[in-house]
């Protein structure tokens, strides 16, 4: 399955999702973010709508979905 994350195509590795019919956001974030990044503050949007942290594992992805991982910008 292919999704877009921050504009780049990401092929979801099948071993992460073989037990399930569809990947969820937690699977994708585990593949995309470093462990350090996972401890940082970030927001995730699926097709431009924000998803709560508590909903990551229950949010199933479809082929072609667009995911944005946003970190707070600090600077002025």
């Amino acid at each position, binding site marked *: 399955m292919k999704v877009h994350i921050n504009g780049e195509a990401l092929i979801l590795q099948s071993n992460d999702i073989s037990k399930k019919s569809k990947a969820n956001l937690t699977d994708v974030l585990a593949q995309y973010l470093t462990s*350090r990044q996972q*401890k*940082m*503050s*970030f*927001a995730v*949007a699926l097709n*431009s*709508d*924000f998803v*709560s*942290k*508590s909903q990551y594992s229950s949010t199933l992805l479809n082929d072609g979905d667009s995911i*944005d991982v*946003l*970190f*707070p*910008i*600090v*600077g*002025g």
Partner: protein
Amino acid sequence: MLTSNEQLRYSRQTMLKHIGENGQLKLRNASVLIVGMGGLGNPVAMYLNAAGVGRIMIADGDNIEITNLQRQVLFGESDLTQNKADCAAEKLNKNNSDTQIEVIDEMLDEELGQFYIPQVDVVVDCSDNIETRYLVNSLCVDHKKPFVVGAATGFDGQQLVVDPRKDNAACYQCFFPISEKAPANNCQTVGILGPVLAIIAGLQALQTIKLLTGIDVKYNQLNVYDGFYNQWQQFNISKQVDCPICQNN
């Protein structure tokens, strides 16, 4: 009533049907707190001052350094080592004698925030650190004051409006919960181009003018600017039930 001088001075904005003379009076009677007088604070203050916002409080404890001049366009070579809020007030007074500028020559902390935020109509976040942003966010939610957030580094910017007067409004922490590890980048570590700040600050000033004149402003939306590819993206959010800041609001 506007004076005849004011009618002429602000005519190009009062001729807009959504502003009018009534909107100009609202601006004249308004007060705004700008937190941070750096690359975002400079243009925000310049535009609000030029537009005739009656009372502008500016808070910054930093002094002007040579590395600021590339983007902090109110300041020049002769201003080095001066306090940013002090120096900005002097320049803003020269540009518009109708407005009143109040200087807070310290970094905004909880005590100062508790004192000043209840006095203003809108708070504009132009700070350069996330701790201040979280603090101001929480104080604005407590005091139900609209809060216009802006931030930029490199070619990238983010902007959003938090409006705690609305029951369903998300706050900054709904978007970005406090985390174990602090964000990695800031202007000191990754650099910044001046015009990126101008774009985000221009949007902040516009949102502030709209809030002050009673024009609808979209909240629950994060505006993300990518100046490298010249793209804007909008992300929608709803108030988070488990947010520790807006839970009780």
